[in-house]
């Protein structure tokens, strides 16, 4: 059924109205039905088209990409087809419909613009072909699976903080020894003395040789190990702003990876819940942030509890050397006291452990609203949550674990500051 058939039927109005009566109406209806049936057999079947989808480049969330659909006419008939290149709503596909007139053996391409609205592997949906003949009274259609995946990487919004954080790290670099000297710094190079340098950092022996004042410079230690553990269990699936807590955790992991690998440290990222979901390493990687993004793309939180024993053994297996282990998880009383605290000693025996968690901004708002009685009770419940997480932080500090808790937007920066602080004080 097409618009042309409707037009034909409307055209039938003329004879029907000129010669009113059942006979004329039946004759006109018969003519239309015969035309439709004949046309149905004239329509080339949609399966004569060979389809191919070429996914466009992988992009960060928020950036546009595309997918190319190629339709090849393998048959010896001329194909007049309408194509719907269907994508899930979150793909943000525009103009998914197109028309082709394909002579035998010809091919046509259509590029569908995509603006993905969600991180992850974006699977193309079915491609529907609607075919018609020259007459075009009847259209036949069929849908085909044409697999294609467009990868949408995490947005990495916090990369705008990267220059300032890197700058902070650089300030540590090349400073005269006194300012930062201590554990965790190593000799870097000698350079000419300039006004303002600490006189205590003058290398007298070198100055004597060079006939000029020379100072020693230092830089933070390099080639340290950082292991970031991102919890993808049910606690990470909590809604938070536009996304989930897991998205904020990924942001933090990405910023820390960018920062630490830029500073010459080796970063390993483990994403795990009841099983290990993804492992990525900056070792021998040209672009660690990109590689990590790709590795994390397909991971979404699942409704399982995290298996911290397995996570601990994975961390131990990842790095035999002393490492900074960052656990990005939730400060949930049950999981921390029952699951994390028991495995901490094995981790602390060899590594320095830091716990980063996303603070729920909703809690603070609820705790501040105190108008009616109901709101007071809600505020009390929210306050109790906040107190619990504070006491957990205290317990963790007692166990020798530093913790950072910040809102989703601030956590990446806060974790980066903690790293820089540790680096500066040589506790890495």
């Amino acid at each position, binding site marked *: *059924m097409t618009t042309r*058939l*409707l037009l034909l*039927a409307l055209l039938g*109005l003329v004879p*029907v*109205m*000129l010669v*009113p*009566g059942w006979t*004329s*109406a039946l004759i006109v*209806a018969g003519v239309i039905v015969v035309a439709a049936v004949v046309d149905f057999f004239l329509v080339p079947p949609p*399966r004569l088209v*060979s389809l191919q*989808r*070429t*996914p466009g480049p992988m992009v960060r969330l928020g950036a546009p990409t595309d997918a190319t659909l190629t339709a090849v006419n393998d048959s010896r008939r001329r194909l007049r087809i*309408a194509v*719907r290149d*269907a994508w*899930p*709503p979150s793909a943000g596909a525009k103009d998914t419909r197109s028309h082709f007139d394909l002579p035998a053996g010809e091919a046509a391409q259509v590029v569908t613009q995509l603006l993905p609205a969600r991180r992850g592997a974006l*699977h193309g*949906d*079915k*491609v*529907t072909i609607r075919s018609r003949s020259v007459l075009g009274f009847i259209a036949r*259609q*069929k*849908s*085909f*699976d*044409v*697999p*294609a*995946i467009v990868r949408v990487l995490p947005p990495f919004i916090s990369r705008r903080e990267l220059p300032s954080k890197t700058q902070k790290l650089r300030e540590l670099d090349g400073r005269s020894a006194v300012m930062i000297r201590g554990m965790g710094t190593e000799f870097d190079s000698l350079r000419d003395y300039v006004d303002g340098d600490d006189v205590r950092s003058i290398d007298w022996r070198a100055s004597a040789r060079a006939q000029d004042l020379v100072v020693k410079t230092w830089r933070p230690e390099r080639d340290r190990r950082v292991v970031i553990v991102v919890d993808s269990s049910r606690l990470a699936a*909590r*809604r938070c702003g536009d996304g*989930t807590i897991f998205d904020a955790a990924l942001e933090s992991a990405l910023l820390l990876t960018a920062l630490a690998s830029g500073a010459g440290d080796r970063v390993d990222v483990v994403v795990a819940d009841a099983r290990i979901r993804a492992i990525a390493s900056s070792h021998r990687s040209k672009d660690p942030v990109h590689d990590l993004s790709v590795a994390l793309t397909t991971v*979404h*939180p*699942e*409704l399982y509890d995290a298996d911290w024993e397995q996570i601990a053994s994975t961390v131990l297996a990842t790095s035999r050397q002393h490492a900074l282990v960052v656990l990005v998880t939730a400060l949930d009383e049950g999981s921390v006291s029952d699951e994390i605290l028991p495995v901490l000693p094995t981790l602390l025996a060899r590594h320095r452990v830091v716990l980063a968690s996303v603070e*729920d901004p*909703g*809690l603070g708002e*609820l*705790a501040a609203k*105190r108008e009616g*009685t109901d709101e*007071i009770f809600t*505020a*009390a*419940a*929210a*306050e109790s*949550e906040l*107190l619990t997480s*504070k006491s957990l932080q205290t317990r963790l500090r007692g166990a020798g674990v530093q913790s950072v808790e910040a809102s989703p937007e601030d956590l990446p920066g806060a974790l980066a500051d903690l790293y820089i602080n540790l680096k500066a004080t040589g506790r890495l």
Partner: protein
Amino acid sequence: MSALIDVATRGTHSSAAVPLTARLRSAGVWIVAAVAILITVIATMLMTSDREADAPLHYDSAARDGTKAMVETLRDHGVEVTTTEDFATARNASGQPETTLLIPTNTDMLSQGDVDGFRSELATHDNRLALIDPGSTVQDFTDRITVDDSISPLATPEKISHPDCQVPAAQAAGTVETGDTEYAEARKGTEGLRTCYPFTGPGVTQIDGGEVTPGSAHGQLIVDDGGGGKGDVPVTVLGNPDWVTNAGIDEEGHASLVLSQLSQTDHLVVYYPTESAEFESAPSTLDYVPSWFIAGALWLVPCVFILLLILGRRFGPLAVERLPVIVPAVETVHGRAALAARSHDRTGALHTLRTGALLRIAKRLALGPEAGHHDIIVAIANTTGRDPAQVEAVFSSAVPRTDSDLSHTVHLLTLIESEVS
């Protein structure tokens, strides 16, 4: 994954074949709907036909006032009975030789044209017309018979009538039950007209003043062999419907009388007049609309149907979105708050809020972890300049007994906390 990418770059089309069971499941709604419509239509048809067959004196009605027993008995005795509700069929059938036309009821539904049609058909073979208690409409069929209006209104006829005539069938049948109406010859002394079963009993006298002259032949059964004039048909009038009904035919001599009257010919046509379109008299608005307009309007119906089909056809199935798992975050907080509110745990709620406030204030006033809550309260009183007793009450001692107490204390708490800055 690599296999998927490989497949994606090479391009394939997999079959979109759907298993039969799935197709049946999705078509289930339509199948059920079709069956339901079918059942409704059948039920409606059955019910309507039942209703028609229940009509009084209907040849298919097995009810007490039906005449199925009579028709079937006549068939059993070798009379070819044609039953119909269709005027044309009845008229054609009554034109055959050796036929009697029986119109059991509803004679008032026939127009004069219909009656004339019957009369001309019957006249071709001198066929007989039988009427059952036609009332005044008998005059539409013949001008030789009329309703007897000469009987005194004070008359109380006997329940049983005797033949009292020369018709052999009536004499053989004997007595019959008396009905409500009596018929008489229209003009006194009409030739070839025999009457039977006249009203008898106390007070039955013919009085003058009506159409029928006193002394005319009268009775409940009239057998008129026709006057020999053009258009005159032989007519038999059976004056009491009870004689032919399923309930009454086995009483007295009814069966004998009726069956002998109706089985005189080889064929019997039973015509049951119904409301037909020919009786639609009042012209409706449609009659004033030109036919080409109606044809065009009706033609638009299939056009609209085609339009709906075009608009309703979806271009492929809906695209599927795989949604990630998301857990509402502050759900537990609301749950706990509702629990506390239901159990009126004001002390617990206030304690939590106090603890939170004290911890924040201690941090703001740079008091170390060793400071007890008394130290903090003293510090608050010093900073804000409030009465230490009031601060003590708000932050430590006051016990909220009602919700308004709690609300008041919490507002003070919040106020004091905001003052410390």
